[in-house]
């Protein structure tokens, strides 16, 4: 870790911004990864270890545009292998593998510790989904629907806990 970098506090709004950036473009994704790599969520001991409460969110965010090794190489080919972003992605991949799936599996401890970030994840996924639904409804019914997602209350699944 580069201790000289400024540590960014990753709150709910920043998390939403990072998710959006990941979905925009290569540059957006790289920028988001840079911010993530300098965030307090990542700059802690063993952020991707099995017991880390941060790991599920970090892995999920990195995986937003993960489309396989070739794709990643093509994207990050121009960057130094020692670049913190590459190092982070590599580390994440070695620790748990990456997936482009929306699946986000976490422990109750992680959920409680980073509830706001999970809310950001859930709300962003839903907004993206509703954006798609808006297009579906338009093509299916010739209707224009405007969605207003104010909040998303989350509750950890007790019985189906992935702890």
């Amino acid at each position, binding site marked *: 870790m580069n201790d000289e970098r400024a540590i960014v506090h990753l709150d709910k709004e920043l998390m939403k911004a990072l998710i959006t950036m990941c979905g925009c473009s290569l540059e957006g994704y790289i920028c988001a990864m840079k911010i993530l790599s300098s965030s307090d969520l990542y700059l802690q001991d063993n952020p991707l270890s099995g017991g880390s409460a941060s790991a599920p969110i970090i892995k999920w965010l990195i995986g937003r545009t993960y489309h396989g090794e070739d794709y990643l190489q093509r994207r990050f080919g121009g960057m130094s292998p020692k670049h913190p972003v590459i190092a982070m992605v590599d580390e994440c991949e070695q620790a748990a593998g990456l997936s482009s799936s929306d699946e986000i599996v976490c422990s109750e401890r992680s959920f409680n510790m980073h509830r706001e970030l999970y809310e950001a994840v859930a709300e962003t996924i839903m907004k993206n989904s509703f954006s798609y639904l808006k297009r579906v409804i338009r093509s299916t019914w010739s*209707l*224009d*629907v405007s969605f207003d*997602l*104010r909040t998303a209350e989350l509750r950890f699944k007790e019985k*189906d806990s992935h702890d």
Partner: protein
Amino acid sequence: MKKNNTVLSYDWPDVKAVRRIKLDFFFSAADAMFGSKHRFRCSFLTDSKGVPEGTMKIIDEGCGPLWRTLSSGDGGAVESALRERSVTLSGGEKLWFHPSCTMQRSAAAARFSRAARVSEADAAVVPKNFRNITVWENCSVYLGFGQNANGNPDKKLWIIKCPQDAGKDVFQPIAGETVRETIKRYESSIWPLNLTYGLNFDQINEASDAECVHNGAAVFIDRTAEWLRGVADGSIQHIVFEDELISFLSQGAGLKIDIPKFDSLYGLMSSDELGNISLALRTLSTLDWLSCPSVSAYLAAINKKRWWNNIPKSKAVSYMLRELGITAKSNSRSGYTVSRAELDAFRPLFEHIIRREIQDRVDNIASRCSFEIRPDISFTIRTIGNE
């Protein structure tokens, strides 16, 4: 025109009968049409009071059973006979409306197609007025030549209703004899004293050479019930009473596709069981599907590949599918265009459909997460182009 002792039996089945019989005393201007070639004018020799304006049919051995039932004067038997001809509506039938029906034809357009001819129809819609029948058990009809308004010879019928209470001296013309001969037989006895209806002597003079062609029963049908003639003659095979059609339509209007029905039909249409799909299609066809064609077409198109070759044998279903544009080649992906009127009328249903879609997506997301999601979301719907 051949005659026998009961008169004209083989020529009368084609009789379109005496039309527009005037209620005036001793009218002389009513038309009677026999077959397609012969036109007659009809007159009463006696008081025509009580004779409805409409159709007259002589009852003889050439008449069909329904004519005989009509001539019996038994209202219950008539109703029973007509019930046998009536059909139970399910929607989608091709209907022909008798001109005497008063209901708005367009009221049925949503659920039924129209036939231009009764022969093309599944059923004829008729008014429920089959009691507008008058029976003369004993009347005499004379056929001969009178004079028209220009003083030229004109074929005419003269009809005499014979008193039924005249006992053995009842006025009883004999087939083949003329009016003059009949009067001669009776002039010293009951004629005209026992005829309580009075006589028009001018007409008797004019009819004096006319021959008696019928002596027996005749049925008069009120003009508003002339459809009975079509039923009795067989040109109308199946009937639907107008009030029953109105009742059916009002039921349909009450059976709007609401949220519970949509959910139920959606579930059935999505089923793997063809029986469930068939049930859903049949049920949908009984609802007021045309008032919300987009939703109806959407529902009906679910699982189409699965059921298309097993369409329920129902005219209502076939008609509904045809009207909704669901064909072998139609593709639900081309979507449906919800009109402003449809959206306004069924806004709660469309909101429900969208809410279902939202919930499906939320559930789908949550299924891949370690947490449940309870979104606080609102949405507004507009038709495209109505910004």
